[in-house]
């Protein structure tokens, strides 16, 4: 007998721009102890399904039809009062963003025990808190007893996510809806959480609806897969079957995009272009960079990987002199960047451009694409009359159409925005680009296309890239050489294939081991 039955679920939102059909006729079921993965590109309606089952889209003004039953309880027709009884006790949800999903002004222990007491009125406050400690402990939070008194902001992202998990499981629900529970985490933490969920399912027959766009994670945990696109289910089936032999063209595309790119054939690098020597940065005693020496050669791509907080962004900001290092130097074509005066810096700046991690934050939301591109052209003293044509050219180079010139950043998709970001960097006619996680905010299909674009530009104009990422797979596909960073230090550097097949440092080895893999993918090392 299945735990959850959903039939012909349709959800639409009335917005200023008309109705948005977020979910458009979705039917599936989840059995006890089964993990069903819901995958699909951004905006396909995955979260809406989860939220609707929890009854949380009602107050957003959604129109909902179809049926959904959880252990015989009608979820869609239930009154708010009945839903309150079900939420947390029979079904629980873990939300995508653990920082914003916890109340910032309440202690985490209180937040967990609050749920327990809401459903079990006879439990005393102290008992509930005791259970919270236990739950947090089981969720793998070290020193749970003292951490119950912590506020959310005092915990790391991973710990916050585990608190969410502990909270969701506090009343031992039958169904857990997990909305991208690991997206915010680095690979090692992600692996730990996935292991916990697996263990939980074994132990408590927990049924799970696991929402994600990461196929690697799906392969790791799911029994069955549902693929969504534009509000509809385009494919569903056993996990292995879908991953090995996708039938729907969209799924095939997605898988293809995810598949790691073959390592590049090594090329002959030119002379050194950008060098750092013993670069150090300290923030109030914290060493964000601790003696980093790296070299980027002409025409090559240097990948820098490292977990969150490793100092990657700090490194990049020093390279382009958005920040002054506490020690060490940066040289660009032999010239000292670190101590250059503002006037000397200008020509260097043009040649050394940056692509930012968050494409939407790096584009002025109040300016049209044309203006954004023209601002670079103006600095090159291109006559005003040519701006528009040149801007259109640039767009073409990054695979966009001239009509995009008229748009504001918010009118572009994530991938398009990142392309504009690249076009802006190109507008200065640079020799080298430093790229801070240029694709990590994009979903898999778009990501692949942007990486392709970068490769093509490099072919065309011999640019050098310094590409920073926390994702090993990305770095692997595009880099000639790779450097691994941790806690402000470079642990090892080497040609891509060599580093991946024979990592020297044990941290690199751990990092590689933690990477989720699709079935059929051969682990390259360990």
């Amino acid at each position, binding site marked *: 007998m299945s735990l959850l039955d959903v039939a012909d679920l349709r959800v639409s*939102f009335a*917005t*200023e*721009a008309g109705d*948005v059909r*977020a979910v458009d006729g979705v039917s599936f079921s989840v059995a006890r102890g089964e993990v069903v993965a819901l995958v699909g590109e*951004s*905006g396909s309606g995955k*979260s*809406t399904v989860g*939220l609707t089952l929890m009854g949380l889209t009602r107050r*957003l003004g959604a129109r909902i039809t179809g049926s959904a039953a959880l252990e015989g309880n009608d979820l869609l027709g239930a009154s708010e009062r009945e839903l309150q009884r079900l939420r947390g006790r029979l079904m629980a949800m873990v939300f*995508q*963003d653990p920082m914003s999903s916890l109340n910032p002004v309440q202690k985490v222990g209180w937040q967990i025990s609050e749920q327990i007491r809401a459903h079990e009125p006879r439990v005393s406050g102290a008992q509930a808190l005791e259970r919270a400690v236990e739950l947090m402990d089981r969720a793998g939070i070290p020193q749970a007893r003292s951490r119950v008194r912590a506020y959310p902001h005092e915990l790391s992202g991973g710990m916050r996510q585990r608190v969410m998990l502990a909270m969701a499981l506090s009343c031992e629900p039958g169904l857990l809806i997990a909305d*991208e529970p690991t*997206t*915010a985490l680095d690979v090692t933490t992600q692996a730990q959480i996935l292991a916990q969920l697996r263990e939980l399912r074994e132990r408590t027959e927990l049924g799970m609806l696991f929402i994600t*766009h990461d196929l690697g994670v799906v392969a790791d945990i799911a029994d069955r897969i549902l693929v969504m696109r534009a509000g509809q289910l385009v494919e569903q089936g056993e996990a292995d079957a879908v991953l090995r032999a996708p039938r729907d063209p969209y799924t095939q595309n997605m898988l293809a995009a995810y598949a790691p790119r073959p390592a590049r054939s090594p090329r002959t690098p030119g002379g050194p272009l950008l060098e750092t020597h013993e670069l150090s940065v300290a923030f109030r005693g914290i060493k964000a960079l601790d003696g980093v020496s790296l070299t980027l050669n002409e025409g090559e791509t240097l990948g820098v990987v490292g977990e969150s907080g490793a100092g990657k962004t700090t490194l990049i*900001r020093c390279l*382009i002199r*958005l920040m002054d290092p506490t020690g060490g130097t940066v040289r660009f074509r032999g010239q000292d960047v670190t101590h250059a005066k503002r006037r000397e*810096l*200008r020509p260097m*700046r*043009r040649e050394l*451009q*940056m692509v*930012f*991690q*968050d494409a*939407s*934050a*790096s*584009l*002025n*939301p*109040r*300016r*049209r694409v044309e203006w954004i591109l023209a*601002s*670079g052209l103006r*600095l090159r003293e291109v006559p005003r009359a040519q701006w528009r044509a040149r801007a259109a050219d640039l767009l073409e180079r990054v695979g966009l159409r001239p009509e995009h010139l*008229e*748009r*504001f950043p*918010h*009118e572009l*998709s*994530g991938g398009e925005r990142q392309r504009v*970001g690249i076009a*802006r960097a190109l507008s*200065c006619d640079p020799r080298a680009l430093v790229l801070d996680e240029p694709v*990590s*905010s994009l*979903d898999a299909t778009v990501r692949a296309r942007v990486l392709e674009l970068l490769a093509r530009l490099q072919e065309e104009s011999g640019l050098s890239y310094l590409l920073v990422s926390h994702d090993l797979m990305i770095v692997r596909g595009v880099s000639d050489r790779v450097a691994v960073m941790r806690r402000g230090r470079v642990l090892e550097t080497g040609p891509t294939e060599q580093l991946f097949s024979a990592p020297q440092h044990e941290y690199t080895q751990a990092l590689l081991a933690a990477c989720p893999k699709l079935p059929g993918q051969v682990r390259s090392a360990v």
Partner: protein
Amino acid sequence: MTAPRPGTKSPPAGRGPWLLAWRRLARSRTALAFGGLFLGVAVLCLLAPVYAHRVAHTGPNENHITETIKIGGKNEEVTSPTGVPIGPTWHSRFFLGADANGRDVAVRLLYGGRNSLEIGAVATLITMLLAVLIGTFAGYFGGLTDGLLSRLLDVIWAFPPVLLGVALGVALAVGGLDLGVVKLTSGSLLLPAFIIGVVFVPYVARPLRGQVLSLRGREFIDAARVQGRGHLRILAGELLPNLTSTIVVFVPLMLANAILLEAGLSYLGAGVQDPNPSWGTMLAEGIRLTPGAIHLVLAPGLMLVIAVLGVNVFGDGLRDALDPRAVHRAIVMRSPRGTQPPALEGS
């Protein structure tokens, strides 16, 4: 990682934020109605001379103390021997009654409105100009510039606005103010406008500074710096467009507050100088003559409330339209009676 969150939907392509805001505003009928109300009052006030000549047949400063007028066949004195002025006649002459000097209240109300609105508008302009300059420079350059400008704001801030206004008003009432570029003579309407404008600067400059402070850390500013653009270019090209909606939101707010503060200062005798009427001075005179002549309080008071209410409701709608996701709602609506919380650092 910022995957788009539910609730943010992409608007129709090709539309700028301004157009969208305008559309939202156009749909908010209450806001438009009240905006229209304010405009109506303003137009009415601009037509004061027409009313004075064609309808009331008297000017704003013409005294009719000892005259009598015919109402419904009866002769009535404009002011009684003990100085009590006639109430509303609802006729073309002395429609809203007379004041102690036997002047037509309706005529003065319209002329006074002109002055009140003019002061409000000029004061708002001064506030916005100074506040944008101070706020953006302090926020963008930080360091010493910020320190000095922020202390300056602190000083104006901690100075009780009404006391500052009255003190300045008294100080400048006779001699006027010589600013080098402009000379404000005593009795000039620009004088109270200038005082009010200065008093309100911190209320706008502080939030602007806070906003610039947070914008400064945004990546598109970094992007501009990476391109090697100069500070002023970045200020004007990148920052200012992002401040416009805040600025626009503040304009009606400040206009409303300026009109209110003008009334308060006039009540304390430091506002508009005689014989120029303003709603505030009329109110002050009216309050002196209550209870025998409540119309002298009600007429300017209600007119003032209607005009300010119009601005406020419109401003409220504008705020919603410009930023439905309510970044600006946190910008506290201010009254001249109080102060605004300083933008909290580190939040």
